[in-house]
């Protein structure tokens, strides 16, 4: 309550203050901005840059997988000692896989996705002037940026970047001499991730606090758009899970640099050098890592779910099917995600009984996931669908979530996992369900909220081109991997031609590589569209998609504080699309029920007896008029 009165107090000043508008300097406006909309754009552009870099890394190692014997002189020109004689160095191959995974999971799909849309949408959709602590928010971006620079700088050191996989299991990560990437590269990885976690914690704390404290008048929790619900639960997950990774990393640093034995036990390097470690347990690291790592995959997918829900409802011109079920399933996923980490560790010699427990909790996650899928499909059903680019990507997200989610049921099974663990089946599974699905959710968000961010529209035709090539490309890349995995082809191997039984998959690998190159080229259609539209796109109107949520009530020109006058009050939920009896097929959240008598329904007045009386009276008069006629 106190928050509200303070904000009203600020409003009075706003109106009289319009005349002498302080001009911000370049530095405070674009660089060290504390405005949430600018920070959102900073996160988006850094995220897209990192995504392009990580995508190019993946193309490099895909070339190696497709042509393991062939020499490409161009590679040596580009990469120097990392590709002697035009063939990728095997250690550099591992570094590429590691950094591709790290960047995509953390820098693109965690910071790029949540960072962009939480910063943009939380204040705008809830009716707040900015975040709880704009300063912390700015700090969060600059920590993220520094972390990105440090992560990339590891390509420029003598022995190359970290290469023990994005999960940095010890002993590869704990012994600086274990492999080339375990030295300086690993150190940089750890420094970068510590900064990254600090950034995520600052951001997450801010998001949670803003959502719980700074909603505008009338915006109770059950009137929040699903995007905000998803971003809220994502932030909660981050706040609870990232500190655990810090604990794991602290112990890892002690093992690396102080000679403790938390994760290390009797180890002999190079066959001769006996290491002084004793009694440590590498499994301990896996427990700590996956206690973060599993919630992390939901940190990645939940914002995409929220964005898709919103985009699909707007473009189907229909209320989201099962709003409450959507929220409860998000809460269910949040809670369950903390008790399933063991399914990453079925083959570590875990007690089979414990494996059974983790298997059951894992399979239970299928229930809320299926609820969400069903609700998305039911939202589309008989909708008045507008196939905007954002809508296509949202539907694509659902498609990937289904096809990738189904394989999760097999992987979550402790017995089947013995066969499938660490094969391409896993690679296919998570690239579809959290990789492609989350990136499609993010792209849906970019196309949908681009007018809000930059005041201009993106080109729809290029958007369609981008969608179809990416959509088909992603399936062509990841679908064949299931079959490789079923055949037992392991992930992270440098050249399959070395193994008699896997040689026959070479043709498939070549096919996948060309599909990946095709999909990668399509991303340049997006990049061109994105950059061109920022400067020369068609000017957007205030509410180009005819959506209900609050962000579309702000002026197209950005101003610090979002609304020029008073912050609008909210009277209804965000999904009043195509309400029978309404004049238009959308009723913004700011329209009071008293202005829409013809479309009101009795359940709109659940906690409001006076309103219900008025409604009944109005219906009676209408009926009488009918009789007179």
């Amino acid at each position, binding site marked *: 309550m106190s928050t509200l009165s303070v904000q009203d107090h600020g409003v009075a000043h*706003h109106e009289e203050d319009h005349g002498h508008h302080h001009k911000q300097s370049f530095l405070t406006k674009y660089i060290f901005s504390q405005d949430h909309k600018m920070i959102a754009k900073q996160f988006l552009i850094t995220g897209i840059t990192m995504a392009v870099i990580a995508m190019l890394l993946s193309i490099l190692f895909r070339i190696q997988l497709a042509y393991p014997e062939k020499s490409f002189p161009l590679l040596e020109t580009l990469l120097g000692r990392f590709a002697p004689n035009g063939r990728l160095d095997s250690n550099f191959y591992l570094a590429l896989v590691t950094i591709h995974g790290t960047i995509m999971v953390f820098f693109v799909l965690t910071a790029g996705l949540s960072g962009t849309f939480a910063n943009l949408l939380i204040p705008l959709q809830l009716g707040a002037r900015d975040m709880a*602590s704009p300063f912390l928010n700015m700090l969060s971006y600059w920590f993220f940026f520094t972390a990105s620079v440090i992560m990339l700088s590891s390509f420029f050191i003598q022995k190359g970047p970290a290469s023990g996989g994005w999960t940095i299991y010890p002993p590869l990560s704990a012994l600086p001499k274990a492999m080339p990437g375990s030295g300086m590269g690993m150190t940089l990885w750890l420094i970068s991730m510590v900064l990254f976690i600090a950034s995520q914690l600052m951001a997450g704390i801010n998001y949670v606090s803003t959502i719980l404290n700074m909603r505008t008048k009338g915006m109770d929790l059950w009137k929040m758009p699903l995007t905000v619900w998803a971003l809220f639960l994502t932030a909660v997950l981050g706040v*609870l899970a990232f*500190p*655990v990774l810090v604990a794991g990393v602290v112990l890892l640093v002690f093992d690396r640099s*102080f000679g403790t*034995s*938390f994760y290390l036990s009797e180890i002999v390097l190079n066959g001769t050098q006996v290491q002084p470690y004793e009694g440590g347990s590498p499994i301990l690291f896996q427990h*700590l890592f996956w206690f973060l790592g599993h919630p992390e995959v939901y940190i990645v997918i939940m914002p995409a779910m929220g964005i898709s829900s919103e985009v699909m409802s707007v473009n189907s011109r229909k209320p989201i099917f099962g709003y409450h079920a959507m929220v409860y399933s998000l809460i269910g996923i949040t809670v369950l995600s903390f008790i399933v980490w063991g399914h990453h560790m079925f083959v570590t010699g875990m007690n089979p009984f414990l494996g059974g427990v983790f298997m059951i909790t894992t399979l239970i996650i299928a229930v809320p996931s299926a609820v969400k899928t069903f609700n998305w499909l039911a939202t589309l059903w008989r909708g008045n669908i507008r196939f905007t680019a954002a809508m296509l990507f949202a539907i694509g997200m659902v498609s990937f979530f289904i096809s990738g989610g189904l394989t999760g049921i097999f992987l979550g099974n402790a017995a089947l996992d013995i066969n499938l663990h660490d094969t391409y089946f896993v690679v296919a599974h998570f690239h579809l369900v959290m990789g492609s699905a989350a990136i499609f959710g993010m792209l849906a968000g970019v196309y949908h909220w681009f007018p809000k961010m930059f005041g201009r529209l993106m080109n729809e035709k290029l958007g369609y081109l981008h969608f179809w090539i990416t959509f088909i490309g992603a399936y062509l890349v990841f679908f064949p991997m299931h079959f490789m995995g079923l055949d037992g082809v392991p992930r992270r191997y440098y050249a399959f031609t070395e193994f008699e039984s896997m040689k026959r998959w070479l043709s498939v690998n070549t096919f996948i590589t060309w599909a990946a190159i095709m999909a990668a080229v399509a991303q340049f259609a997006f990049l061109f569209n994105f950059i061109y539209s920022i400067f020369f796109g068609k000017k957007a109107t205030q509410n180009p998609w005819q959506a209900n949520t609050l962000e579309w009530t702000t002026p197209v020109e950005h*101003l610090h504080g979002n609304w020029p006058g008073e912050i609008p009050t909210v009277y209804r939920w965000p999904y009043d699309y195509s309400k029978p009896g309404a004049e238009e097929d959308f009723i913004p959240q700011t329209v009071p029920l008293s202005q829409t008598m013809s479309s009101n329904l009795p359940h709109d007045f659940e906690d409001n007896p006076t309103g219900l009386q008025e409604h009944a009276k109005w219906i009676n008069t209408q009926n009488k008029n009918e009789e007179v006629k």
Partner: protein
Amino acid sequence: MTRIQQQEDKLNLAPKKFNMWIFIFTSFMFFAALTSGFIVYSGGTGHGIHIILPQAFMYSTAVIVLSSVTMFMASRAAKGLQFAKQRLYLWLTIILGILFFIIQIYAWYVLVYKMGIYFTNPNASQSFIYVFTGMHLLHILAGILLLGYTLWGSYRNIPQVKNLFGMQMSSIFWHFVDIIWIYLYVFLLLNQY
């Protein structure tokens, strides 16, 4: 407008206090992860602590509990507009905090030189003692800095709203590090053998 906006942000203290509570949750998760790590480690390898913890930890516990009491007195004095008293109790809290810090370091000294329990140790259960206390000391350090900042503010005669806000922020944090220490100490005591 920007200036007004910033003023408004500064007055928006309730959400900032909420930020502190969430931060405490993250901190709690961090220590929960470390202690869970201990349980997984000692359960999996059969290594326990197998020593009697130095007496010093008992004294440091007494000191930090006392510092929580003085912190409470300082808050009460601040609410009652007795600023001299507030400063006195804040000074006491800071001094007790520093004393706690010193006693913890002394406990490490006892562990290393009297008992021969090193940080670099094949039995990581014993290394965990150093990790718990060390990570907690980092929090103590942050707490002392926060207390110092609040004390500095009270000497500068900042508005009472802000003074109270600073007091609330630092007392939430200080009581939290106190409780965390008791949790860690009890945890270590229960796992002594």
